[in-house]
């Protein structure tokens, strides 16, 4: 069944909240701040998205998932555009998203360079940086001296 009435931006945003980041499946693309703009046109929706990292390999999967999701809701034409104007920063992660990251076992980005990263498992600040580069472009490698666990941090990205 094809809906004849055009959905609202809010409605589209809600649908897009069902699309998650394939590498961090606890976060959806709206709360991550990846969805920048929704353009409603007659029978067509254009979604502007911005990459967290230039080389983020999840972007293609996310583009496809957006198209599939909206077409599944009866939108005939979906265009997904990548934009870089106003580059994404980790400051755009909502408080809720940060908490989700922590409970998933990834330390949320620390606000400043000087701040000590907290272990997502035991909460200790007795941690050390092992490498700026981790299992994905957006994470760094750390080690907790208190609970002796290696862990990852969603790396801070800001100007």
């Amino acid at each position: 069944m094809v809906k004849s009435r055009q959905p609202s931006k809010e409605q589209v945003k809600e649908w897009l909240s069902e699309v998650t980041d394939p590498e961090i499946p606890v976060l959806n693309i709206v709360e991550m701040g990846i969805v920048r703009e929704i353009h409603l046109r007659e029978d067509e929706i254009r979604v502007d998205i911005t990459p967290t990292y230039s080389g983020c390999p999840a972007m293609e999967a996310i583009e496809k998932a957006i198209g599939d999701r909206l077409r599944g809701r009866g939108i005939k034409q979906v265009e997904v555009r990548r934009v870089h104007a106003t580059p994404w920063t980790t400051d755009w992660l909502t408080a809720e998203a940060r908490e989700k990251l922590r409970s998933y076992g990834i330390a949320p980005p620390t606000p400043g360079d000087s701040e000590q990263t907290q272990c997502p498992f035991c909460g200790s600040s007795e941690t050390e940086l092992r490498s700026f580069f981790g299992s994905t472009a957006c994470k760094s490698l750390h080690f907790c001296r208190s609970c002796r666990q290696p862990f990852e941090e969603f790396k801070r990205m800001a100007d």
Partner: protein
Amino acid sequence: MTLSGRHREALFPYLLRLADDRLILGHRLSEWCGHAPILEEDIALANIALDCLGQASALLRLAGEIEGEGRSEDDLAYFREAVEFRNCLLVEQPRGDFAFTMVRQFLYDSFAELHYGRLRSCPDAELAGIAAKAHQENRYHLRHSSQWLLRLGDGTEESNQRAQGALQELWRFTGELFQTDRHEHHLIAIGFVPDRRELRPEWDSRVKGLLAQATLTVPDESHQVAGGAMGNHSEHLGHLLAEMQILARSFPEAEW
């Protein structure tokens, strides 16, 4: 972006030059995948390579739009010949040993950090955004290569010798980073892009400062080679492209 013919004619090669530096450097870094001295470093080099590739892809996509001939970023990466590539000679040199790779990375990162930092104020929002995103990433790269430079230079006798040897080999390619051409002069004149020639004093002082800290000696300035940005490449680029492009050329339009 609505552009005059002159602007378009200048911006296309300018974007290619930016993109090709990132693409070729990224490819050289990716050659370390599975070969780095320790696991963390293998992951780090692959990550930096991926950032370079992502930046190249965004820049090539924009270049294709500016050109207006319907070429995608893949067309530009995989279906151009060596003479059409505009990357500098520094990035196309074979990866050498780990010291060679890290010294090259440090010399290039120090330049990119300054260059992309300035490019963020480009009046075109999309190019400014690509630059700003790249700048966030390049700062991590520079921190990484700077730390290694210190560790290798001020490390063991062997690591010092290898780093010094790499520096000796690579220094002659650094002058090209600051060379401009008529297209770039036009873009500088209209205030669209930063003047890379102006970055030289700051690059010199930062690079030489860290080299001194790493107990490495700055090589003689007199002998410099350039030409990559004009398409005059060393033989190494052809071999690199053969490997990088073979799959796309053997199976054009393939999807997987």
